[in-house]
């Protein structure tokens, strides 16, 4: 009897329906995310069957030719890896510097506006960076940087393959793409690193100061080691953004496959080759190969992001003594 009236109240109030709605939506969301991977896997079947593992392994840098039915992911994987790595190398010192300034040094009245500005840097749409890159930034900066690199590092025997010129006069090149990526990932790395600094307990700083350390020594010898895995997470998060960035890179990398590994020459990234060719891919094998590149990109960014989250979690959950 009491059982029945409980059940009645439960239904009349609509809580069962509400709970069911929430669970259904949450499940649908999980299915959506899983379905992205599943759909890419299915639609790339033709290409996976035709090429197998050969699709992935490093081969000649020019092995992408839709007209001849020649599809290998290596040229675009190489482009993605090299542009992202160069961007990370350039962005990390700058971003950590910004994070230190924002979290540790900057006077309070300046903190809020600076935080806004860094966030604005992240909010500028990718196409706008691309447009500015093509017409302003590449001709002004990338070309001279490229010529300088070709004249210096390009003459060093071991590095010749990576830095041989000449850079195109338009500046459209892997180097140009790396520069634009650098600008785009700085806010990500800086913002996460700033939060890592802010999560470090005050006692850590006070203890070091009490031992006579200078402000810089506190930061360099105490805070950075303490938050190391958090900073690593921030960097990997930035890497994730660089790997998947599409429009700005598509606009400045030149989109061509030529037989060169040089940073100063045009190339492709995984994202840019999809953006550039998918709409025009009439042959089933061509679009399937692009789907497989999408699948690889999905897999890599998934891995990278999960790793970064775990690292950042570890710092923010480790707050001893409180």
């Amino acid at each position: 009897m009491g059982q029945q009236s409980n059940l009645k109240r439960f239904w009349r109030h609509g809580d069962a329906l509400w709970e069911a709605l929430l669970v259904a939506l949450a499940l649908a969301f999980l299915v959506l995310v899983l379905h992205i991977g599943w759909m890419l896997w299915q639609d790339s079947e033709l290409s996976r069957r035709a090429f197998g593992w050969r699709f992935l392994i490093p081969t000649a840098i020019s092995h992408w030719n839709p007209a001849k039915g020649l599809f290998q992911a290596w040229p675009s994987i190489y482009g993605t890896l090299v542009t992202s790595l160069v961007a990370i190398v350039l962005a990390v010192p700058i971003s950590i510097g910004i994070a230190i300034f924002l979290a540790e040094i900057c006077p309070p009245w300046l903190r809020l506006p600076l935080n806004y500005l860094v966030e604005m840097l992240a909010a500028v749409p990718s196409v706008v960076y691309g447009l500015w890159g093509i017409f302003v930034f590449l001709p002004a900066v990338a070309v001279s940087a490229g010529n300088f690199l070709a004249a210096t590092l390009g003459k060093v025997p071991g590095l010749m393959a990576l830095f041989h010129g000449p850079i195109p006069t338009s500046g459209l090149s892997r180097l140009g793409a790396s520069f634009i990526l650098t600008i785009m990932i700085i806010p990500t790395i800086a913002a996460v690193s700033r939060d890592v600094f802010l999560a470090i307990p005050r006692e850590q700083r006070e203890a070091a100061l009490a031992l006579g350390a200078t402000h810089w020594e506190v930061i360099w010898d105490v805070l950075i080691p303490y938050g190391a895995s958090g900073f690593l997470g921030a960097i990997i998060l930035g890497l994730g953004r660089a790997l998947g960035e599409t429009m700005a890179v598509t606009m400045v990398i030149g989109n061509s496959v030529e037989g060169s590994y040089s940073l100063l020459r045009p190339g492709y990234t995984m994202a840019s080759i999809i953006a550039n060719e998918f709409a025009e891919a009439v042959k089933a094998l061509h679009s399937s190969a692009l789907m497989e590149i999408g699948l690889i990109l999905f897999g890599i960014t998934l891995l990278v992001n999960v790793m970064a989250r775990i690292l950042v979690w570890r710092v923010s959950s480790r707050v001893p003594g409180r």
Partner: protein
Amino acid sequence: MGGVRFEHRYTYRKAVNIIMLSTTGLLTLLALIPLFWVTGYVIVKGGRYLDLDFFTRLPAPLGQPGGGVLHAIEGSILIVALATLFSAPAGVLIGYYAARHPNTPLGMGVRFATDVLSGVPSIVVGLFVYGVVVVRLHTFSVLAGGVALAIIMLPTVIRSTEEMVKLVPPSLREAALALGAPEWRTAISVVLPAALEGIVTGVILGVARAAGETAPLLFTTLGNDNFEVIRLAKLAIGVGASPWEIARLILTQPVDALPLTLWKYSQQPYPERVNQAWAIALVLMMLVLGLNLMARVWLAYRRRR
């Protein structure tokens, strides 16, 4: 002697301190240069080509001056509105669920999936929506674009809702339940309104991000120079279509959006088109940065009260 060395070392340490601390300030300035450079350039260059025609006319034939991007403005509004409609209610409820059940398998699954989805490159989302929507409808469409941008917005909405709901004091919820309100009523009338400012901020930030996205639209909306809602509606009314049919007609058209048009124009050899690309960039920057600023100012204002 040792004292002198110590003195020397102290000066050295002080010097390092000052040099490194000022370096961080300089690096901050360095990173902001591109922001000012882009913004300044876009304002100067884009402002020159922004006029009334830009907002009210369809594109001029290739190579001719004049014309506007009305088609892309209407397209952007439609796609982003549709995306918000799809993602905001669902995202808020999913975020609410994740906040209320942080330690159940489904709750953790949702949080994990949110992290994963926010890291998925937008071009991959475009491929996905091409596969599930465009292929099935046999046409590039407003609808497909809306779905694609909704997927882009979802993580932002879910995460901000989750964080904000967690900040609502449990006593508020318990008070409502103690008064006999059912769980759903408590959520809709007490908990979510208490977290409203944060949720709205999250939605606005999601809209700002979606409005500037190009990659997910490349193979979902494709582009359409002649898209004009009023003309389409008039055409449909002319042949006696019902409102449902008109909506269907409009939603299944290929369509342009501002970022997509910007990208296309930037690739064309006609200077008129490139100039208009700069004008679009200005509109987009104002829209995106304006929305961002609005979200933050509003949040700060509400917090202070």
